[in-house]
C-alpha cells in the first residue's frame, strides 16, 4: 500500500515525516547547511546568522500551562538556541479561520508579547490571512526567527563519543497535557504544558564557557525522535539511563493508562544538551541554577558505536533499543 496522500503521521515528527521531508523538499531544495538541524546557519558579514521557521497548529488553542501564542514564540526561540544563537527577532504570520473571535486572537497576541518580553526577543514583522470557515482550524501561526550565533559549530552532527547528555527537566509534560485537554480520554489533574523559552538557560551555559557540541529541543516525537536524529547526524551511538530521566508522576500515570511511551511524548520547554565529558558536572550545575532547568539531569552518554543506535538501560538494568517513533501518538488498550 504506497502512500499517495498526506496522513497525520506525516506531521508527527517520526519516520514518516522524515521521509516526506527528504522525498519532497530536500530532494528539490537541497540540504542547505547541516541537514537535520532545526536552524540554518548563514554567514553574514564577519559573523553567522541562525535562521529558522516553524508552524503551530495545536488544538486546543488554550491548554493548561500555555497557548498557541506562547508555543509559537518559545518554539522558534528554542530552535534558534539549538544553533547556539542569541535570538534577535521573530516574524509572526497568522492564518485565521473566518468566525474566530477577535478576543481570542487578542489573548493569543498578548501571550506572544509576554513570552517575547520574557526572553528579550522582538516580534518585528508579520502577516495576516483569513480563510473561509472550515479551511483552517481557528488559528495557524508560523513564526520565523533570526539569531546571532555566539558559538559556531554547535550542530546535531557534532556530537562525539564520550559526550554526556543533559536533559534540562521532566519529559512528556506538553504532549500529555495537550492530549488530555483535546481528547476525552482522562482528566489531567495538575498536568500542564512545559512550554517555555530557554534563552536564559542556554545563553548562560554558553557564557560560562561550557563546551557544548550539540543541542536539540525534543518537541514532537519526544526525546526518542531527537536522540535518534542526533545519533544519525553524528554517526554515533547514544545510551540513556532510564532511571535518570525525570518524569512527573501524573505524566507517568497518564502514559501508563494510555499505553504511551513517555520518551515519545512531546516537550516544549526542554533541551537535550551534549557536552564534553570534562564539562558535564559544571554544565549540570549551571543549568540547574537557571529558570526552567531546576530538574535537569545527566541522562546518558555518547558511544562510538554501533552508529545511529540509541539504547536505553531500563530501571531493571536490562537494555532495550529506542527506535525513532513511527506514526502519530495514539492511545492503546492492548
Amino acid at each position, binding site marked *: 500500500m504506497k502512500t499517495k496522500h498526506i496522513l497525520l503521521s506525516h506531521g508527527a515528527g517520526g519516520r514518516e515525516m522524515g521521509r516526506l521531508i527528504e522525498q519532497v523538499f530536500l530532494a528539490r531544495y537541497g540540504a542547505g547547511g547541516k541537514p537535520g538541524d532545526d536552524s540554518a546557519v548563514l554567514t553574514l558579514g564577519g559573523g553567522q546568522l541562525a535562521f529558522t521557521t516553524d508552524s503551530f497548529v495545536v488544538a486546543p488553542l488554550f491548554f493548561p500551562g500555555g497557548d498557541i501564542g506562547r508555543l509559537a514564540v518559545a518554539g522558534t526561540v528554542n530552535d534558534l538556541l539549538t544553533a547556539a544563537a542569541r535570538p534577535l527577532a521573530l516574524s509572526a504570520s497568522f492564518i485565521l479561520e473566518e468566525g474566530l473571535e477577535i478576543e481570542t486572537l487578542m489573548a493569543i497576541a498578548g501571550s506572544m508579547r509576554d513570552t517575547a518580553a520574557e526572553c528579550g526577543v522582538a516580534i518585528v514583522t508579520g502577516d495576516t490571512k483569513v480563510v473561509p470557515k472550515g479551511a483552517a482550524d481557528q488559528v495557524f501561526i508560523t513564526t520565523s526567527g533570526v539569531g546571532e550565533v555566539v558559538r559556531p559549530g554547535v550542530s546535531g552532527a557534532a556530537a562525539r563519543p564520550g559526550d554526556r547528555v543533559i536533559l534540562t527537566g521532566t519529559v512528556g509534560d506538553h504532549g500529555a497535557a495537550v492530549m488530555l485537554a483535546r481528547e476525552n480520554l482522562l482528566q489531567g489533574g495538575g498536568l500542564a504544558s512545559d512550554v517555555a523559552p530557554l534563552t536564559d538557560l542556554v545563553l548562560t551555559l554558553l557564557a560560562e564557557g561550557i563546551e557544548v557540541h550539540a543541542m536539540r529541543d525534543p518537541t514532537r516525537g519526544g526525546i526518542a525522535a531527537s536522540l535518534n536524529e542526533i545519533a544519525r547526524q553524528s554517526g554515533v551511538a547514544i545510551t540513556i539511563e532510564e532511571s535518570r530521566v525525570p518524569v512527573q508522576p501524573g505524566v507517568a500515570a497518564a502514559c501508563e*493508562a494510555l499505553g504511551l511511551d513517555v520518551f515519545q511524548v512531546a516537550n516544549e520547554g526542554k533541551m537535550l544538551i551534549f557536552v564534553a565529558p570534562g564539562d558535564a558536572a559544571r554544565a549540570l550545575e549551571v543549568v540547574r541554577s537557571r529558570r526552567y532547568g531546576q530538574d535537569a539531569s545527566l541522562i546518558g552518554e555518547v558511544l562510538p558505536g554501533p552508529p545511529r543506535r540509541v539504547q536505553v538501560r531500563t530501571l531493571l538494568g536490562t537494555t532495550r533499543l529506542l527506535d525513532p517513533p513511527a506514526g502519530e501518538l495514539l492511545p492503546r488498550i*492492548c
Partner: protein
Amino acid sequence: MCLAIPMRIVEMDGVTAVAEVDGVARKVRLDLLPEVVLGDYVLIHAGLAIARVDAAQAEETLSLLRTLAAADEVY
C-alpha cells in the same frame, strides 16, 4: 488486549465512580464489582473496573519475594 492500570476509587455514585492515580482521573463503571468501596484500588480497562486489587495478597507476594531475595544474598 490487557492494558489495565491500578487506580483508586475516590468518588462513587451507584455504578458510576471516579478513579484516580497520581492526579490523573477518569470516570469509570463498577458494574462488575459490586463489593468495591471508596479507597479501594481497582484495575481500569477501557473505562470499566475489571478487578479489585487485593492489597493483602500483593503484600504477601512481595513479602515472600523480599525474604527469598534476602536469603539469596547470604550466598
